């Protein structure tokens, strides 16, 4: 067994499932659930107990996914990001994953900190933060579709591009 690439691939899958699983939880479940909970006055429990924990695992699993992916690419890292030859498919996946990681750490998390009251923000700032965090999260959901396609395609080029 080649221990480093084997372990990196395993970790990349596990952390990736957690990251994208939580992303889909936010977008397919929590957005509508919070609207319904706000309507009947039960949202406080979700925002206090569920959202911070979900965001904790979400942002760190995103980083671990990216780092394990980079380790998995190893010496082919720059061939992939340079979209060179047979590495172009995995390279597109890698670029999409990188944009998504950026969105998590520089758009979603800083704005969620304002929404959750972890950092001080006026009501107006919170309203803006909600919209930015929502759109960044929806953008990541949209990007996850081609990202997952190209992650699969990159590992099985003959099937997808043969």
């Amino acid at each position: 067994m080649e221990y480093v690439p084997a372990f990196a691939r395993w970790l990349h899958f596990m952390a990736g499932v957690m990251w994208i699983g939580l992303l889909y939880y936010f977008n397919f479940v929590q957005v509508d659930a919070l609207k319904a909970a706000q309507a009947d006055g039960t949202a406080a429990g979700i925002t206090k107990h569920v959202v911070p924990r979900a965001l904790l695992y979400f942002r760190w699993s995103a980083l671990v996914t990216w780092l394990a992916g980079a380790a998995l690419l190893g010496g082919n890292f720059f061939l992939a990001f340079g979209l060179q030859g047979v590495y172009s498919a995995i390279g597109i996946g890698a670029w999409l994953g990188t944009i998504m990681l950026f969105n998590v750490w520089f758009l979603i998390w800083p704005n969620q900190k304002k929404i959750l009251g972890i950092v001080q923000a006026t009501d107006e700032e919170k309203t803006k933060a909600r919209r930015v965090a929502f759109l960044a999260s929806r953008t990541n959901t949209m990007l996850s579709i081609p990202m997952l396609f190209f992650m699969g395609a990159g590992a099985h080029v003959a099937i997808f591009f043969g």
Partner: protein
Amino acid sequence: MKNPLDSLWGTIISGLILTLILYNIVNHFLGG
């Protein structure tokens, strides 16, 4: 015009369209 990302179906359809566009770029211009 409504932002397609405001709805889940708009988000999914946008993702599928982007997949098709990127697939064709990789297939035709980058050599898979």
